[in-house]
C-alpha cells in the first residue's frame, strides 16, 4: 500500500501538465472543434512521440511498460484540457490487442498505433442493449474461407477517425448469452460497411456502423473465438479507470474556473465570493474534487487486481462515485457562474457536457449499482 506517485510518475505528471498548458488554451480547443477535422493531428504526433499513446503496454509490445495509473495520469491531463484527441479509443483498442493479439497482429497494429499512424476504436454497444455488454445481436459467421459479419453497432466512440475497429460480434449463442462473443478487427474500407458519423454533445463525435455480409479473413479474429466477454469486461473497467481520471481533470478545471469567477465577479458592490452561502458551496465542490481524484486513483490501482469479480466491483464503485461527484461539480459550476455558465462562450458549459457524456457512457450509475449487486451475490 503506497499512495505516492513514483518519481517517473511525478515526471510524467509534470510533462502532461506542461503539454496541456502549452496547447490547450480554451479558444484553441474551440478552433479545433470548429475546423471539421475534429482534433489536431499535430498534437497527436507529439503525444505519440512522448510515448503516451501506448504508455501502459509492455515494452516488448512497443509500450513503455507502465501501469494503468500512468494512462490515468495522461487522461487526467486531457480531462483538464477538455481534449478532443481520440486517446481513450486508442488505449482501449491497443490494450485489447496487446492482451489478445497474435504476434503477427501485435506486430502489424501496435507499432503504427504507438506512432500515431493508425487510428482505432472499439465497437461494443448496440441500440437495444443499453449498457449490457453481453447483449449482442451482431453475428459472426465462421466459414472455411474466412468470416462474415452481419449486424450493427451504435455509439462507436472515436469511430469516425478509426482506420480499424475492434468489433464485438456473436459467433454462437442467443442474443443475450454470455458465451459466444468474439472480437474481430474490421478495416474501415471493407465492402458492406455502412457508417453514419455524427457529432456528440461533448464534441468528440461517434459513429453508428452497419455491416451487411462483411467478409473478413480468418486473421481478423482477435483472441479465442466465443470467449471474449471477460476481455470486454476488462476493457469496460479500463475505460472506467480512464474516464474517472479524465473526470478528475475536468472537475478540477471547473473548480478552478468557478473559484476565479467567485473571486473576480462583483455583484451588489462586492465579489460574488464574499457570499458565505456560495463559499460553502464552493467548499463542497472542492471536496467533490478531492473525492474524484481519490476514487480515480482507486480505480486505476484496482485495475491491477487479479480477481476479476473484485476488479469489476471496484471499478463499478468508481463509476458510481464519479457519477455523483462529476454531476455535483458540473451542475454547481454552471449554477455559480450564473447566466454565463450556460453559454457556448465559456468553457464551463463544455466541461459540463463532457462530464455528462462520461456519466452516460460505459454504464451509468444505476447500471453499475446493479452490477455491484451481481458481484455481491456471486460471493
Amino acid at each position, binding site marked *: 500500500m503506497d499512495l505516492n506517485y513514483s518519481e517517473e510518475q511525478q515526471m510524467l505528471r509534470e510533462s502532461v501538465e506542461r503539454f496541456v498548458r502549452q496547447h490547450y488554451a480554451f479558444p484553441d480547443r474551440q478552433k479545433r472543434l470548429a475546423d471539421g477535422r475534429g482534433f489536431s493531428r499535430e498534437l497527436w504526433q507529439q503525444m505519440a512521440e512522448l510515448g503516451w499513446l501506448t504508455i501502459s503496454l509492455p515494452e516488448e509490445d512497443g509500450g513503455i511498460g507502465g501501469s494503468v495509473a500512468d494512462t490515468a495520469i495522461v487522461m487526467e491531463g486531457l480531462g483538464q484540457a477538455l481534449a478532443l484527441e481520440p486517446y481513450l479509443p486508442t488505449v482501449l483498442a491497443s490494450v485489447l490487442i496487446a492482451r489478445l493479439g497474435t504476434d503477427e497482429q501485435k506486430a502489424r497494429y501496435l507499432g503504427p498505433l504507438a506512432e500515431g499512424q493508425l487510428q482505432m476504436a472499439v465497437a461494443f*454497444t448496440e*441500440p*437495444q442493449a*443499453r*449498457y*449490457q455488454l453481453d447483449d449482442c445481436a451482431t453475428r459472426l459467421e465462421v466459414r472455411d474461407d474466412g468470416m462474415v459479419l452481419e449486424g450493427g453497432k*451504435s*455509439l462507436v466512440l472515436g469511430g469516425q477517425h478509426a482506420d480499424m475497429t475492434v468489433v464485438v460480434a456473436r459467433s454462437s449463442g442467443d442474443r*443475450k448469452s454470455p458465451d459466444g462473443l468474439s472480437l474481430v478487427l474490421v478495416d474501415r474500407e471493407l465492402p458492406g460497411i455502412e457508417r*453514419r458519423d*455524427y*457529432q*456528440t*454533445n*461533448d464534441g468528440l463525435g*461517434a459513429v*453508428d456502423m452497419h455491416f451487411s455480409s462483411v467478409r473478413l479473413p480468418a486473421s481478423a479474429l482477435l483472441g479465442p473465438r466465443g470467449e471474449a466477454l471477460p476481455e470486454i469486461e476488462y476493457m469496460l473497467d479500463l475505460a472506467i479507470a480512464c474516464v474517472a481520471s479524465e473526470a478528475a481533470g475536468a472537475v478540477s478545471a471547473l473548480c478552478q474556473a468557478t473559484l476565479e469567477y467567485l473571486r473576480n465577479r462583483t*455583484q*451588489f*458592490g462586492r465579489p460574488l465570493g464574499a*457570499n458565505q*452561502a*456560495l463559499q460553502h458551496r464552493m467548499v463542497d465542490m472542492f471536496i467533490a474534487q478531492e473525492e474524484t481524484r481519490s476514487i480515480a486513483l482507486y480505480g486505476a490501482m484496482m485495475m491491477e487486481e487479479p480477481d476479476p469479480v473484485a476488479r469489476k466491483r471496484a471499478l463499478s464503485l468508481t463509476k458510481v462515485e464519479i457519477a455523483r461527484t462529476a454531476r455535483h461539480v458540473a*451542475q454547481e459550476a*454552471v*449554477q455559480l457562474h*450564473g*447566466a454565463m*455558465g*450556460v*453559454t*457556448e*462562450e465559456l468553457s464551463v*458549459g*463544455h466541461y*459540463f*457536457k463532457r462530464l*455528462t*457524456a462520461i456519466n*452516460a*457512457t460505459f454504464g*451509468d450509475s*444505476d*447500471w453499475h*449499482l*446493479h452490477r455491484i449487486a451481481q458481484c455481491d451475490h456471486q460471493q
Partner: protein
Amino acid sequence: MEFRLNQEQQAFADEVREFIRTHLPADIARKVRRDQHLSRDDYMRWQQILGQKGWHTFNWPEEYGGPGWNVIQSYLFEVISAEMDCPIIQPFGPRMAGPVIYTFGTEEQKDRFLPGIRDSTVWWCQGYSEPQSGSDLASLSTQAEDRGDHYLVNGQKIWTSYAHYADWMFCLVRTRGDGRPQEGISFLLIDMNSPGIEVQPILMMEGTHSFNTVFLDNVKVPKENLIGEQDKGWSYAKFLLEHERVDNAAIGVTKAAMRRLKAIASQERSDERPLLEDPLFHARVIEVEAQLQALEVTALRVLSQVASGQAPGPVASLLKIRGTEIAQRISELTSQAVGHYALPFQPGYLRDEGAEEPVGPAHAATAANNYLWRRSMSIYGGSNEIQRNIIAKHMLEL
C-alpha cells in the same frame, strides 16, 4: 377542501379540452410532444388562435379583455394546455408588458398597446439585465437622456429572450444617476425597429439561440412611451417580478414533462423490461413525482391566497426555487433514461429541420439537449440564490 374537480370545474375543463382538440394545429402539437424547439411562427399561430377566443390573455381582468377566470380555472387551463401539447404562451406580452401597461399606463398607452398583446400580433421582449448587473438589477447603467419630447437611450441589455423575434421591448433605463440605485430608474416601451438597435445572438452551450444581447446606440424613444412616472420604474419592475415567480412554478409544463419522462422510460428497455420497472429508476422518478405533487398543492395554496386578495409575497420565491429544481431533475432523469443516446448532438432534429432520421430513437434526440437547456432555469428570472436571499430577508427576517 376538496382535491377533485366539482361539476362546474369539470365542465370548464371539458370546454378547454374540446377547444384545444379542435384548434391546436397538429404540426405544432407534434413539435411540442417531441420537445423540439418552436419557431416564432409556431408560437404566434397558436397564440393568435387563443387570442381570437379571448384566451391569450386569460389572466387579465375582464375590463381589458380577459375571460374573467378564477384562479382554479386559470390553473386548469394551463395544466390541460400542457397536457395536450400546446406551446407555452410566451409571457412577455400577456404576463409582463400587459399587466404593467394596464396597471400603470395611460389610457392612450392602453388603447395603443393592449390590443396587439390580446390578439398576439406583437411580440414583446424584456430589457432588464445588463452585462454588469445580472441578479443585481438596480445597478443597471443604460442611460436615457431627457431630450425634451424624447429620451435618447444608450446602453446594452443582455439575456434578452427572443429579442430577435420581438417588435417591442419594455425596458428599464436610468434617468437619474444620484440617490439610491433603485431611484432614478424608468420604465420605457421601445420599438425594436428604432434606428440604433442591434440584436446579437448569445449561443447556449447546447447550441440553441433564444437569448440575445441588445445594443442601444442613440435610440430615440418618444416620451409618450414612458410608463408611469419618470424615475419610478423600479416599483413597476418589482410588481412584475413577484408575479413572475408565481408563474415560474410552471406546474402544467412540469407535469407534462413528468408524463413524458414516464412514457420514455416505459419505451426504453433495461434487461428486457421497461426501464420504468427497474426498481432504481422507478424510485428516482417517484421521488420527484412526490415533490412535484407537493409543489402543485403549494402552488394551488398560493393561488388561493392571491385569489383572496393577498399578494403572493416571498412564498412565490419558493415556487420558483422548487419549480425549477424539480423541472431540472425531471429533464436529467429523461436524459438518463435514454442511456448513451444522450450523446448525439442533433440540432437539425431539435429545430425540426431534419430531412435526416435521428440517430437512435426519436424520443432520445431531444432528451439530453433539454437537460442542458434547463440548467438555465435556476439562473434566469432571479437566480435561485437570489430567491433564497429574498425569502431569508422578507419572510424569515434574518
